[in-house]
């Protein structure tokens, strides 16, 4: 007879190890937001509420069978493409760039939802594709079209960061689906050729400027390079153990731009130092490792592909944001999910986690059946 009463099945079957990591990361994020607001709950409180709501959503999603997502993948994709077009149209009518649709009760950002949706869609495509066709032309072009349409629509918003993430998410699934390796190598070489052309003919001025400054932030320390420079100062000033909770001057004295959203990692790093940074990276590593395990244990092709793809989406968030605040990537406006203030990124990550938990549940409860 155990002293601990048995937990009810729906709670006991949750992947608690992974959720603990999520709690740790989010909890730490709330502490950082509390400090970023100068010792106020201005940002931490709404963010905590959001976390609870979206966690509930993710748990609810975990009870939905993966087959459901497979069934609705294309429909969701099509709907989001329509919404992206709508956003673009509204932006053109109102005159000015716009990324969201206002439904009154919620501001929906279709490009954000497209991050998991592209993974589902491309995975669904390769799931349908007979195995022998995988080396053929028919394995390539439909996937490229599926990725290209939303990526292009998002790029013209203009939102280089999200477009990159959508494209990378889709391409990751293509890679995992087993397309010939030389295609990726060839694309890499082609990219190296095309990138300079894109730089001059596709990108907007402000995007070009950001890339130029990323390559040489000191060239404009008070202008557009200011973000990167101040962010690096915050991280560098933190040292090993940081300046202490509520003691960061870069964020509190407003030298660090957007200390609660895109540059929250720098805010954290100044007060918690390298130790805090390793903690955040470790949490993400554990989360991604869990996602990888789910993918490897998944039985179905669709499940495998989306599990790995969604895990990669979470990874991309973290990697791009961290590279950005450390001056390894241009400033593209990708937040650090679960830590940055704002609803969009936490929603996307919770959708990813919800679907991953759904696959995990299927792996554990029904290991033999498809």
């Amino acid at each position: 007879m155990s002293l601990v009463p048995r937990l009810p099945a729906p709670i006991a079957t949750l992947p608690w190890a992974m959720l603990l990591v999520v709690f740790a990361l989010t909890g730490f994020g709330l502490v950082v937001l509390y400090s970023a607001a100068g010792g106020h709950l201005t940002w931490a409180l709404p963010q905590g509420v959001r976390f609870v709501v979206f966690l509930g959503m993710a748990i609810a999603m975990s009870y939905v069978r993966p087959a459901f997502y497979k069934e609705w993948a294309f429909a969701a994709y099509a709907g989001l493409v329509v919404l992206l077009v709508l956003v673009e149209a509204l932006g053109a009518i109102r005159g000015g760039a716009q990324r969201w649709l206002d439904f009154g009760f919620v501001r929906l950002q279709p490009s954000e939802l497209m991050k998991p949706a592209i993974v589902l869609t491309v995975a669904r495509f390769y799931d349908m594709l007979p195995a022998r066709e995988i080396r053929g032309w028919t394995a390539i072009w439909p996937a490229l079209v599926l990725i290209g349409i939303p990526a292009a629509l998002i790029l013209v918003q203009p939102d280089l960061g999200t477009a990159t993430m959508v494209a990378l998410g889709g391409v990751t699934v293509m890679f995992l689906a087993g397309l010939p390796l030389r295609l990726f190598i060839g694309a890499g070489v082609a990219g190296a050729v095309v990138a300079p052309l894109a730089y001059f003919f596709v990108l907007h001025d402000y995007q070009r400027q950001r890339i130029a400054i990323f390559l040489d932030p000191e060239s404009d320390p008070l202008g557009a390079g200011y973000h990167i420079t101040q962010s690096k100062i915050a991280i560098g000033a933190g040292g090993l153990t940081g300046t202490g909770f509520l003691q960061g001057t870069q964020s509190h004295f407003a030298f660090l731009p957007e200390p609660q959203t895109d540059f929250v990692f720098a805010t954290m790093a100044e007060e918690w130092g390298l130790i805090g940074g390793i903690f955040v990276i470790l949490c993400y590593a554990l989360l991604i490792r869990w996602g990888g395990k789910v993918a490897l244990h998944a039985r179905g092709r669709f499940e495998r592909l989306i599990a790995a793809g969604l895990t990669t989406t979470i990874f991309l968030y973290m990697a791009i944001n961290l590279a950005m605040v450390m001056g390894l990537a241009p400033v593209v406006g990708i937040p650090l999910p679960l830590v940055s203030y704002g609803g969009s990124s936490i929603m996307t990550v919770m959708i990813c986690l919800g679907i991953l938990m759904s696959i995990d549940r299927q792996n554990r409860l029904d290991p033999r059946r498809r």
Partner: protein
Amino acid sequence: MIGRRRNPRPAVTETAQSAIFSRRAVVLGAAQAGVAALLAGRMGYIAIAQNQHYSEMAEENRIQMRLIPPRRGWIVDRRGAPIAANRSDFRVDLIPDRIEDRERVIAELTRLLGLTPDAVAQLREDLEQAAGFQPVPVAENLTFEQYAAITLRQPELAGVSPLRAFARFYPQGAAVGHLVGYVGTPNREEYEAENRNPLLIAPGFKVGKNGLEKTQEMRLRGRPGEARVEVTARGRLVRELRTVPDIAGRPLHTTIDLGLQNYTARRCGEQSAAAVVIDVTNGDILCFVSMPSFDPNSFSDGISHAEWDMMSQDERHPLINKVLQGLYPPGSTSKPMTAVALLKAGIDPEQRVNCQRAWRLGNAVFHCSGGPHGPIAMHQAISKSCDIYFYQMALQAGVQNISPIARRFGMGERFDLPFPSQRYGTWPDPEWLQRRYHREWQSYDTVNMSIGQGYVLVNPLQQAVMVARIVSGRKVMPRIIAEGPAPEFEPLEGIDPEHLAFVRDAMTDVVNGGGTASRFRLPVPELMAGKTGTAQVRRISMAERASGVRSNASLAWRMRDHSWFVCFAPAQAPRYAACFLVEHGGFGASAAAPMAKDVMTYLFDREKAMTALAALEQQWGGTLEKRMRRRAEQWAAARAAGVEPPQPTGHL
């Protein structure tokens, strides 16, 4: 197409695909781990290896060193009384670079400080011309309540900088205007000239702009203090960290007698005048007055347009230091010195000349304004100021015997005095005339020179030095900074002390022996000796001579003669040499001599002198400050009403 060619290869089965997935997923996971490690490494590099560099940058961000302008050294008179001092001052400046909403800031400041429309217009103009970080003064001399009100609202008024500083204060106001000059916010040229010394753009810092303040800038300045303050990105002060106090500039000891200076300035009244008093024993300048003057207090606070216009349109030139920059013909005041030259040239002082009021030389007729004197010898020619005596005797002695002597007495001499500009005039001779006007010296040039007219131009300081040299027989050099041992002067080269005694005697009789200034004996036991002078400004035509020379009173102020009086006292044992000039004051005895009488009286009996001044000031309509303030108000009111402002003149 690609697929077709690959067809011969074995088809990929689902099992194989599954294996490929697992393989690639592991590769992907490894790549992700690699990226994570790279990011962790990058962070370690920034946070550990470059920690010091970035810590310093963070510190540079938040810690600003603010220079505390040093208190300027005082300027004191010979007894240590302050001519220029410092007083605590609450002030507000604007930092153009930090202003976010200019209109709101100006509106708010106008409300809080009650700025006048004139001040707001000035502020806007200053902001237009301002360069980035250089603060633009908004207001000084604020009350503590105003200062506190601004400080409270500072967070919402980006660019506004309230400050507690020190402001220059001149207790004697306009009386010392041309002596000390004034201070002001450095301009761009001054900033560039000092290699962009950051002190020059510190709020509240001022540099000397004229007079002693300008020339003695470096020693008066002192060393700035430093306040290390923590500020936010918006420039808001978080806290003060450490403050190194400033080191005040050393006081500048001058030779000025502040009481005398102030008395003389007040005694000038509304006249356009200059006065210098020198201690003949050491050359100390006791009094250095040029009136009317500006009030250095209001100049140092930043003068308004109206005030500036009023000053620059005043025909009495309150902005010009007449002591050093005003050049005038000395007229008859040069006669004592010319007499010394005549004596040296061998003229017998008892030789008489018959003054018939007019004297013909070739085609020209020369007149004696005071004559006819009848037969007259040198002593009386000086005391009664007979022109015809000097015409004839100068011709007899020759120009070659007069000009070198005149220079020995300081005519045309430039003195080493700490003032930004000095005009030192001319004492002509044939060589100079040839060089300057390319013509031969004529006898009428000697005649004109003999009574201090023609090409002769001197400044009032040279006149005082001339008297000091006549009195002491030594090469007295004036000084205004009382430092180092009392100077010793060489005897005047080739001048016979007996000749000087003769001339001094004649000068004593000018005042005390029925001479031209006999109405102005001092009301004290000490005797004053002197010489009147009337410097002609205009040329009197033959037609005017025929119909009678017009009296000064009937002429426009600008056309009247300059009134001179040079003097020394006590006549028995001379100590003080002085020069008084009243521009367009008419005959020497009518304007300059009465002033000289009161000022010299002050040296021996202050009470008597003050009584005389009180009566005069009542007649003029109040003290100097009161009259200046009233005139400024009238001017401003007239401008506001859109009518022509009252023209200031030298009329009493």
